[in-house]
């Protein structure tokens, strides 16, 4: 069955909240009902039909043609099916997502995958700050699922990561993996300063080191651990570039000793 296609007519006049446009909420709705769904974030009313040209199809497979950094909360609380965005998205893409697949062909704004619980997000471009992180007042960020960023990630990627795996094939900004509770973060290219800042537990793997490593991470030597092969086999299904890092000699740092200190930061030895 063909997907349900939403084609952007023009750049939205304001930020839009696309959280209603997820498979489980559109299932069983008619074209008229979908076109009438309100997306505005101000008092000025904007419905789906005002900004998108709608072509009906399987609501379990949604394709958004045309992107904008004003398209916020794409795939929020998505529980299954697939959403493909052929362009950029705004803030909180895939927030609280529990299942299914969200594919973003362009860049994603801040807080992508925030509070995510399951499923997979694939971002072909860059991700903004606090990828997978918690909103203000929340105690944990991403709780499960898989995030792959083919480009770069902003500051504090995987902040307060609780469970799940985040792979960044490009660079990551400062404080990647800050306050991590558990889970796995892999950054293929160079990472900004202070990765793993105040992390309690969890695993960070850096393919090209960091601008500055906190002195509260203690060098434990180079290891060839079975667990890393296991993670590589799992990661390889999603990012072969990330998996390749795990098969190289890795130096293990324990930390952050300024916090609980049961986390680990692996840095690939440079050839």
């Amino acid at each position, binding site marked *: 069955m063909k997907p349900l296609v939403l084609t952007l007519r023009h750049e939205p006049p304001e930020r839009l909240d696309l959280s209603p446009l997820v498979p489980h909420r559109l299932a069983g709705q008619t074209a008229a009902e979908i076109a009438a769904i309100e997306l505005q974030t101000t008092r000025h009313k904007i419905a789906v039909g005002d900004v998108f040209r709608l072509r009906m199809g399987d609501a379990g497979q949604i394709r958004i043609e045309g992107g904008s950094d004003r398209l916020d909360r794409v795939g929020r609380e998505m529980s299954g099916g697939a959403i493909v965005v052929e362009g950029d998205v705004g803030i909180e893409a895939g927030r609280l997502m529990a299942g299914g697949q969200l594919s973003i062909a362009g860049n994603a704004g801040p807080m992508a995958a925030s509070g995510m619980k399951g499923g997979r997000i694939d971002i072909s471009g860059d991700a903004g700050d606090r990828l997978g992180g918690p909103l203000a007042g929340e105690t944990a960020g991403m709780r499960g699922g898989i995030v792959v960023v083919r480009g770069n990630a902003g500051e504090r990627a995987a902040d307060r990561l609780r469970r799940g795996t985040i792979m960044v094939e490009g660079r990551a900004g400062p404080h990647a993996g800050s306050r991590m509770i558990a889970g796995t973060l892999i950054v293929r290219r160079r990472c900004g300063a202070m990765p793993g800042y105040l992390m309690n537990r969890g695993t960070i793997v850096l393919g090209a080191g960091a601008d500055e490593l906190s002195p509260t991470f203690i060098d434990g030597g180079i290891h060839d651990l079975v667990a890393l092969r296991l993670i590589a086999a799992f990661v390889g299904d999603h990012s072969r570039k990330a998996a390749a890092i795990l098969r190289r000699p890795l130096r293990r740092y324990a930390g952050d000793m300024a916090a609980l200190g*049961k986390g680990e930061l692996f840095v690939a030895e440079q050839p």
Partner: protein
Amino acid sequence: MPNLMVNGVRIDDTFAEAFGMRATALVITADSARWARQAAETMTGFGTSVIGCGCETAIDRELARTQTPDGRPGIRVLLFAVSTAELQKQLQTRVAQCVLTSPGSACYAGLDGPEQLKLGDALRFFGDGWQISKRLAGRRFWRVPVMDGEFVCEGRTGLTKAAVGGGNLLIMGASQAATLSAAEAAVTAIRAVDDVIMPFPGGIVRSGSKVGSKYPKAPASTNDAYCPTLKAAVNTALDPDIASVLEIVIDGLTSGAVAQAMRAGIRAVIRLGPRKGAVRIGAGNYGGKLGPHHYHLKDLLP
């Protein structure tokens, strides 16, 4: 009793009687096939019979690097017991003492299923608080620090209540050497069947037993009807030309696997023929009153 003859080998018109058991499976890996086998053999040692060992356990098959979770050589091991509690106890004790201790080893679930047994979820406490949990693709793995690095162990493994224990073949020959050759041929053929084990030494048992004894404290004693040296003294089941009997006991994760293994064993013995191997094939049962699984030899002929 024999009323069938195939390739000169007499086939008894009888059946093997087997019982329902609880079973689980593990995948043990190591840096080399040698060390994976070492860990598996140590773990499955003294696991021939539930009567004296608590469980019946042996190697199912070798696994290539592409078949294991961590990409290293592996061995699949099966364990059978009469109750879930005993199986859990045997699993935990044997993995803790024999796999955790083996250099470079790791241990994973070898069976899926809705019902599960604790594996790493029980052994993780050896890490004394330094153990690390990793959940990958819905499966939990424990990393326990040990002196050569880390022991990686999956949290749980599957349990099946559809397992069958006690499938068997009695292989009877005109000499000890010929009977052993036939039994070895059967074991080789059965090893190619997945999901079954032959828990006795080399897959063969020479001391088949009957229930009870003249001595009140002994629950089982020698199967005198099949002892060639007692032919003249007891109500023997042996023909005059039989000088040796060996038994192959088969446990399987399913009844179908046991039947398939018995079929493979019978075919191998028949193919070897009576001159180099066995003159007769039989099976052990209790009159059909104790075990729910009956494997009639005539239904398993090639």
